[in-house]
């Protein structure tokens, strides 16, 4: 579905992604695990064209999208739920969700998706006329995911969806991700929290200082020493 092929990215002279190669098949849930500033967010931003790649290529649904602009990638169904939620704080919940469907040709017929999202996140339905800026971090995260779903994504990229959230909310979000996966959604999940990410995903890549240092199935990675040292320093 989505394929990073020897992607290199620079911020000025800083080389932040080195030869990143990764592939996610349709219907898979894949995790991208790494510490702060390891390059996860850059990888996702590059996928959406918010950051230009210096070399390499990016394929989505069989098409080379490296040179397409962000809105063209969004129109093809590549949707990012960004780090830190980034909801439209002055919009109500419903207005935020509608913005998610902005690029769709059938954007005036979104009641089905709206019902679906409200069904997934009953908390959002309770607050549908509330301004997003006045909601808690967990609710904003749900809103951001819901907004992503309104776009009818072919592939959903999630950037640290559980960062800074209370464990009970994290559980709730994980349950939702599980439901989405069960429905056959292709998901790339960037996470610092390796253990959580590995529970969700069937496969994972570990990224360190812009390099993919490890990849494999979740079971095999769970036992790996790298993962342990990355988090607890043992």
């Amino acid at each position, binding site marked *: 579905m989505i394929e990073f092929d020897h992607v290199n990215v620079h911020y000025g*002279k800083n080389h932040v992604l080195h030869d990143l190669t990764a592939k996610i098949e349709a219907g898979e849930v894949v995790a991208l695990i790494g510490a*702060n500033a390891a390059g996860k967010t850059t990888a996702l931003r590059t996928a959406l064209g918010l950051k230009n790649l210096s070399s390499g290529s990016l394929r989505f649904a069989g098409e080379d999208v490296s040179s397409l602009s962000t809105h063209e990638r969004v129109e093809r169904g590549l949707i990012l739920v960004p780090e830190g939620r980034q909801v439209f704080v002055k919009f109500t919940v419903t207005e935020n969700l509608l913005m998610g469907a902005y690029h769709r040709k059938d954007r005036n017929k979104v009641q089905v998706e709206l019902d679906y999202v409200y069904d997934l996140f009953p908390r959002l339905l309770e607050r549908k006329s509330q301004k997003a800026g006045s909601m808690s971090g967990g609710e904003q995260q749900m809103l951001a995911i819901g907004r992503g779903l309104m776009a009818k994504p072919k592939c959903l990229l999630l950037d640290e969806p*559980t960062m*800074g959230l209370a*464990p009970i909310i994290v559980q709730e979000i994980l349950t939702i991700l599980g439901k989405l996966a069960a429905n056959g959604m292709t998901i790339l999940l960037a996470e*610092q*929290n390796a253990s959580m990410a590995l529970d969700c995903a069937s496969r994972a890549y570990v990224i360190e200082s812009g390099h993919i240092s490890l990849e494999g199935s979740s079971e095999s990675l769970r036992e790996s020493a790298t993962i342990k040292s*990355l*988090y607890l*320093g043992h």
Partner: protein
Amino acid sequence: MLFEISGLTKRFDGLTAVSDVSFSIAQGDIVGIFGPNGSGKTTLLSLIAGMLTPSTGRIVWKGKEIQGHKPHDIAAAGVVKTFQNPQLFSELTVFEHLMIAGHLMLKRRLGWRRIATLFNTDTGQAGGDLEARAREVLRLCRLEGSRDQTAGVLSYGEEKMLGVAMALMCEPQLLLLDEPASGLGQSEIDSLEIVLRDLRAHGMTLCIIDHKVGFLGKLADRAISLHHGAKIAEGTPAEVLSNEHVIAAYLGR
């Protein structure tokens, strides 16, 4: 006690980022504060450094309350903070960064007499001291090789090290480091560790925050763990690491 905070709380509308945190730091200690992302660590440092004003609580430095003071006053009092993402003066060279950061040195040495140096090309002993200090800091932080490079061409590791170097030019008595190791490769982390140990050997007091436990676990004398803005554990690093609340906070169970 050199430094003490009690009941420190910071609320942003709707969100309590730091919640009733109290701890103290003794002269010469390295204190590690860790917690996962979003646990309030950076907010805590910003409160100490004066970039944010606490909602309630006290920050006491050498017996004086400093909460709510301006950042430059707090820096002048000897409490200096680095930034997690290096903040630099993009157009300037490494050495120029250090000379700017030497501002407080000149101020301490010369006081208002530094005005006179504006009319007189010779800054005298203080100017010499400043350059000598800059050279020493360059050596200490292993930046001698990039002395005359502009900030834009530095690697991420060098940028972060330059942040530490600038803080050192301020002659801090308490150095607050915001995730100094994040984003660094292993060899850079190793040399950072050596630099920080060096500083401790020179008698500096350090307070370091990090979301990773590994690097800080070896370095710190004492550790404090934050979760959702509140202190959940305090003790030696080994004690804190084996604390069940801490493990739960990290592994999300």
